């Protein structure tokens, strides 16, 4: 069986993954136009300022859209079928790919409030994931 794909970090994204390893979701915030951005970059894609500052987020958001994957051609995911692959929109604005975990398939829906959880997929590597928000 193929191994689960593990993010190959870059000098620009290292900080993101270091924080994730500690169970925190940090994004860059532009000090010029005040927008949060994702993925990490060296210039703000909105205003081209290079004044980007790592900032902690609430870790909360909602499901922008999703699909339930019933068949996959990636070996590493066959034992997880069926699973939810989604785009989550964070309170701070940016969207990111994620799985919705700890969520029955009949409960998943667009706009469902979700919160970040971290899944250890390799030693020292924790992946931001999302689960239904618990009040």
């Amino acid at each position, binding site marked *: 069986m*193929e*191994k*689960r*794909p*593990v*993010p*190959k*970090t*870059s000098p620009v*994204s290292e900080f993101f993954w270091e924080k994730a390893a500690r169970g925190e979701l940090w994004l860059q915030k532009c000090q010029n136009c005040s927008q949060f951005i*994702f*993925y990490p970059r060296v210039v703000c894609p909105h205003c081209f300022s290079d004044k980007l500052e790592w900032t902690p987020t609430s870790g909360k958001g909602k499901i*922008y*859209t*999703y*699909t*339930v*994957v*019933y*068949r*996959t*051609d*990636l*070996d*590493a*995911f066959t034992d*997880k079928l069926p*699973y939810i*692959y*989604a*785009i989550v929109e964070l309170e701070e604005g940016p*969207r*990111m*790919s*994620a*799985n919705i975990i700890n969520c029955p398939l009949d409960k998943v*829906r*667009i*706009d469902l409030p979700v919160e970040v959880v971290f899944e250890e*997929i390799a030693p020292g590597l924790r*992946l931001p994931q999302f689960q239904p928000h618990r009040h």
Partner: protein
Amino acid sequence: MNLRGIAAITGIGELKPTRNPEGKTTLGILAEVARLALADAGLTKQEVDGLVVGPPTEDSAFMWPQQVAEYLQLFPLFLDMVEMGGASGTGCISRALMAIATGRCRHVLCLTGGVWGTGIFNTLEARTAVMSTLEAEFDLPYGPMGFNSAYAMAAQRHMHLYGTTPEQLAKIAVDQRYNACACPQALFYGKPITVADVLDSPVIVSPLHLLEIVMPCTGGSAVVVSAAERAVDMPRPPVYVLGVGEGCSHNSIARMPDITTTPITVSARQAYQMAGVRAGDIDFLSVYDCYTITVLLTLEDAGFCPKGEGGPFVASTDLTYQGDLPCNTHGGQLSWGQPSYAGGMSHVTEAVRQIRGTAGLRQVKRNELCFVNGNGGALSQQCSLILGKSTH
């Protein structure tokens, strides 16, 4: 400068799509279709002064146009590779037009195709090869199922926002299959389907069923684009390039600004503007259809119905070659097959056959003006064309 009608399609060449790539190589396929297209155009290979190719499938992309030129012993003054994913076919026409408009070329040969199979993306290594570094870092760890999951997520949100139903999406696949049953070249010729067949086929990635997903195969398509003043003296009736437009809004679906609005809004607008026509003037459509949802979004974003009304529109519109708005008369890629980048080019070659009046059993009655669209990546890159019988 308006480029309307300064170039025309004067030759096409195509292989019948096949699931069996035995004995085929990508360069060999391109040579076969190049020969057919030049014969169709009545040109010798010495007369070709431009070469525009889609990306290779099994070969190295490094110096790909030069690899193709060497294989064919062509010595063009202008060579290019268009990498627009699925939009590469229409993209080749767009770039050929520019080469002709600037006076650099008279006859540009556009080549797409290759050896392709269902297993093409089935390993992690193969999947990563068609991904950006950033998708590999931020999307791949979550197990996307290639483009399937991307288009499924677009369909899911469209259903959520507008109440689009699985039956409405299925109707697109059914009408196109009806067309394929009048097209002996199509991969699924002789295999009619019903809406129930589509909905009974397995859900691969919700809400998309197996019969809403394109079938990779092997094949090739070639097109000759010539300066209009040359085209009038060539053997085939010229098919004029009246409008062209391109648009791009993202690469990964996770970064698409609005997942139910594609950059076709941009590419179609430019194409209409250049051609001086509106959606209402179009006689038939030949638009990229990697999935049913792709067609639905194209109909909305190219102005055939308002945003959100694609579902009811396809339900009440006969998209067959006998219908009020014929769409993908060769079956579309859903039924013709997706022979790598020639899948996108097949929408061009079919439009040419229809405008020439040589589409046989599936010939449409009104064939003056066709809207053609190419779609690449995860709805990322669009290239629209307006092709027409005359420049009047």
